[in-house]
């Protein structure tokens, strides 16, 4: 019976090494096929007529002109006359035609009349939101009144982040292919291949068993591509009507308008402190909008369990489209509000925030020792001690430099994951798993686990993922993929090895538990002379291959949850123009046992860059009068380019104290802190808090003006 644990450090041939992602060559050469790249024989192109109004009722729909157009093969009314629509960009009618241009002409020829209803698209002020504001009851712990009455220092501030969007580069959509009477083949851009059939089948009223979802590669998800969307179902309906496959992918404006929004968060915060920096009380009055649903309330105060709290949150329901999970839901918001408020408190005490956070670190709970170690490493990497100065860079000139830091946490564990590992008598190996690779390196890590366990090179493993007919594996969200797939792959590999050992005991004249797989051989532990090559061993299988099912959850302790990370930012701010430039950023991150150091680091680098984007640039800009998004494009929905991110340094916590915890996901944690770390660095540079993200020139200049600083420093 196998012992289900990870190999000791000296026994790892591939795990934890720097390994290039296995699908890299496909991606760099344009040969990797994404769902958007799928072209099928006779395929039609779908287009959607969308509501231009943020809130309206459909009065009438006239599709007759479109239906008469040559080349138009199907028209589907998504929302009938009389239906109420709750955001601009909501689908009303869809068409499928022989090419995109014809589909576009047909969509333009459809006449929809709306009764326009009142809307709300901003979230600036919960008091002005009327009945759209949904206050929750206050939550109280300890005795906040006493804490504030006895506080040696009380600090008040306002902080916030706007609604942003995922802006996945591959738009949301599918190629839907209705086959025969009741079968659907879905080439769907999704974070959950195994889960897709049931969700596609339900609205179509066909058995889920008749739906197959396939996806080789996905061009970004970030939390916004779980369920199939209305437009995916619409594509299937059009395909059924037309009897042809239909490609339906959102245009970029629709991606930004309707395909996901990260809820905003704003808070008026009050903090009670002792003069030595000890936190004694927290009070927050927060509000957030996540569209028509609740955006959820951000975790406040984040990470630090401050004694004596009073919190009250108000959800603002508005007409901006629907909220979707965005990497580490709630955490970037909670983190940005809390860590900036705490840094303001440190500044008020003229304390180095590093000392201030260390002073209160026990309030972070069990991971305090990890944070302590990480803070030390990060401080060394960025040169905190020699370079940090009190708030406000006092040097001459218009360029002010500053540093800021932040801490974060996230869960992990692993989603349910099944896989089938087959060893063929010729020694070849196939792994099948219904998972997906979001670009996080899932393919590579599964192959590393299998190859390392079987004592073989990476290339020996053939891996098939991205098909709902493969053994079920969970959706990729919440940093649970690596835990799930690595655990099921490890269990399958260990079980397969056990079964193989049983076949070779006679030849090697040893007990199965005396055997090991190492360097392409099965050998008696420590006796290379008593061995079979992998191929020789597999020949003992006889005529039939060996297949084992690996599962997560399962026996043994392979995965864990709860990681901590620390980030520090170094920025320059031009106080004459309000423009913030990144100099450096350091991320120190723990995530248990790392399977592939290269792709793990890439994910942290990526999170830092995504963090720079939302700290400095990103905002879903809505016009309250029109109820529309004004920047549904990539010119004014700004993302950082290669020259905007400064120098980045990632340090992964590995080795003793980390590896033995098991595998923990990394998708969410490192994207949580950048907003706070960068905002703190800007405050440290210019001597005043810019209260809300993104830190755009208008806001930086406004903060400086409020501080009464000079507008024009000498050069």
């Amino acid at each position, binding site marked *: 019976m196998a012992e289900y644990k990870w190999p000791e450090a000296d026994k790892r041939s591939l795990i934890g090494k720097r390994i290039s992602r296995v699908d890299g060559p496909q991606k760099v050469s344009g040969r990797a096929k994404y769902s958007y790249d799928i072209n099928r024989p006779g395929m039609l192109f779908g287009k959607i007529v969308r509501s231009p109004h943020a809130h309206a009722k459909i009065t009438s729909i006239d599709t007759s002109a479109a239906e008469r157009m040559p080349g138009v093969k199907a028209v589907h009314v998504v929302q009938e006359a009389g239906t109420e629509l709750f955001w601009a960009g909501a689908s009303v009618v869809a068409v499928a035609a022989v090419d995109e241009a014809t589909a576009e002409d047909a969509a333009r020829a459809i006449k929809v009349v709306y009764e326009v209803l009142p809307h709300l698209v901003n979230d600036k002020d919960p008091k002005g939101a009327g009945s759209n504001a949904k206050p929750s009851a206050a939550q109280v712990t300890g005795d906040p009144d006493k804490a504030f009455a006895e506080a040696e220092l009380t600090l008040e501030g306002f902080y916030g982040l706007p609604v942003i969007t995922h802006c996945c580069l591959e738009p949301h959509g599918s190629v839907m292919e209705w086959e025969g009477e009741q079968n659907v083949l879905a080439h769907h851009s999704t974070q959950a291949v195994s889960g897709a059939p049931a969700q596609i089948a339900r609205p179509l009223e066909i058995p889920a068993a008749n739906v197959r979802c396939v996806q080789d590669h996905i061009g970004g998800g970030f939390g916004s591509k779980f369920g199939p969307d209305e437009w995916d179902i619409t594509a299937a309906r059009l395909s059924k009507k037309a009897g042809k496959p239909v490609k339906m992918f959102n245009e970029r404006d629709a991606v930004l308008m309707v395909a996901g929004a990260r809820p905003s968060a704003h808070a008026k915060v009050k903090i009670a402190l002792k003069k030595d920096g000890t936190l004694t009380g927290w009070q927050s009055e927060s509000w957030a909008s996540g569209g028509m649903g609740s955006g959820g309330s951000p975790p406040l105060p984040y990470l630090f369990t401050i004694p004596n709290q009073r919190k009250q949150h108000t959800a603002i329901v508005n007409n901006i489209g629907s909220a979707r999970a965005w990497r580490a839901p709630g955490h970037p918001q909670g983190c940005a509000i809390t860590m900036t408020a705490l840094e303001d408190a440190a500044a008020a005490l003229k304390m180095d925030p590093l000392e201030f956070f260390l002073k209160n670190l026990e309030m972070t709970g069990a991971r305090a020792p990890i944070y302590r170690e990480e803070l030390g490493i990060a401080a060394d990497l960025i040169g905190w001690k020699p370079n940090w100065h009190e708030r406000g860079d006092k040097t001459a000139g218009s360029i002010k430099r500053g540093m800021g830091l932040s801490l974060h946490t996230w869960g992990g564990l692993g989603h349910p994951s099944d896989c089938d590992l087959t060893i063929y008598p010729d020694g070849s190996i196939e792994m099948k798993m219904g998972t997906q690779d979001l670009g996080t390196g899932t393919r590579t890590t599964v192959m590393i686990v299998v190859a390392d366990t079987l004592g073989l090179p990476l290339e020996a493993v053939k891996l098939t993922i991205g098909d709902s007919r493969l053994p079920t594996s969970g959706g990729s969200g919440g940093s649970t993929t690596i835990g799930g797939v690595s655990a099921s792959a490890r269990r399958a590999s260990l079980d397969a090895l056990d079964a193989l050992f049983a076949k070779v005991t006679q030849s090697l004249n040893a007990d199965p538990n005396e055997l090991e797989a190492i360097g392409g051989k099965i050998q008696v532990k420590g006796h290379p002379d008593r061995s079979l090559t992998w191929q020789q061993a597999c020949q003992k299988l006889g005529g039939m291959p060996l297949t084992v099912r690996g599962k997560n959850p399962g026996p043994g302790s392979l995965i864990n949850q709860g990681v901590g990370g620390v980030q520090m930012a170094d920025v320059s701010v031009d106080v004459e123009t309000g423009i913030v430039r990144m100099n450096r950023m350091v991320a120190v991150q723990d995530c248990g046992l790392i399977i592939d150091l290269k792709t793990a680091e890439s994910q942290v680098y990526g999170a830092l860059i995504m963090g720079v984007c939302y700290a400095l640039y990103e905002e879903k800009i809505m016009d309250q009068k029109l109820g529309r998004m004004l920047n549904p494009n990539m010119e004014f929905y700004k993302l*950082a380019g290669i020259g905007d991110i400064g120098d980045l340094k990632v340090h992964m916590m590995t080795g003793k104290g980390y590896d033995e915890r098991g595998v923990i996901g990394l998708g969410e944690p490192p994207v949580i802190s950048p907003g706070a770390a960068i905002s703190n660095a800007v405050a440290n540079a210019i001597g005043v808090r810019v209260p809300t993200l993104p830190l755009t020139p208008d806001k930086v200049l406004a903060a400086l003006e409020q501080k009464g600083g000079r507008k024009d420093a000498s050069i």
Partner: protein
Amino acid sequence: MRAFEYASATTKEQAVGLLGNNWDDAAVLAGGTDLLSLMKDDVVHPKRLVNIKEIAELRGIRAGQPLRSKPQIKLLSIGALTTVQELIDDRQLQSYRALVQAAEGIASPQIRAMGTVGGDLCQRPRCWYYRAGYGLLAKDANGEALVPSGENRYHAILGNQGPAYFVSPSSLAPALIAHDAALIVVGPKGARDIAAEEFFTIPVAEGEREHNLKPNELLTLILLPLAAGEKSATYEVRQKEALDWPLATASVALKMDGDKVSAARVALGHVAPIPWRSREAEAALVGKTISEATAQAAGEAAVSQAKALSSNGYKIQLARVAVKRAILDAARGGAK
């Protein structure tokens, strides 16, 4: 994009012949970097595109014929089809530092390789209300202006008394105005020349354009007077290093008499519906030596008439700083 017919002209006369009397009849296709986006957004829908990229005489940079109106001035002529990258790479333009710096501000090598000088001057404003189909003057269904009460963080601070609130998007125009360029426009009746500054106009009614080309005219050449002894520079305030629209820019060209400014031309970009020539800033410079204080005073003068909309007041500061920094840079690094 709506359907259109397509023709490729090989001479400018052919191109003019293929254009129409109305803007919706035909549009000139050069680099396409703006036109095709406008068509995809259904903001313009010409029935015909006239590709001018095969017109060889519109390419390249060479010594030009003097203008009839100013025969004494030697000129450098830039074909309207010259790409932004060609501007940057051409050694003949080394003395036009403001122009080259402005070209370098277009941070995408793809745009620089595709986009043409003529296209940069003729591109349409990026005002998000205009691009969303509310017209260049951005009015709602009731005819009410959207910009003053709406999201105007990127809109005009000068020349913004209405009804136009958008900003001129041209990167090169302020520099060309600073360098005192003239443009040659060819129409059915032949060629006309016009000062770069006068090419741009502020529309007062919907349907009017922000430049004075007619639908059947073609911008063919940009003429630069020789810039010997001139000190010039462009300073862009841009949030991103990567491709990004500037928030405010200033181009200045200074003629020096010893260490004193004998003549100055100052033009601002992205602050007004047209590239904004600032005679106030120019007046503040003439007769002065360049110092932090005189540059600052010129910056102040440049925005003396500026008026903030509800949320673009910060751009007044940016414009002031852009002028100051362009002047100081010109004085410091101004090439011959």
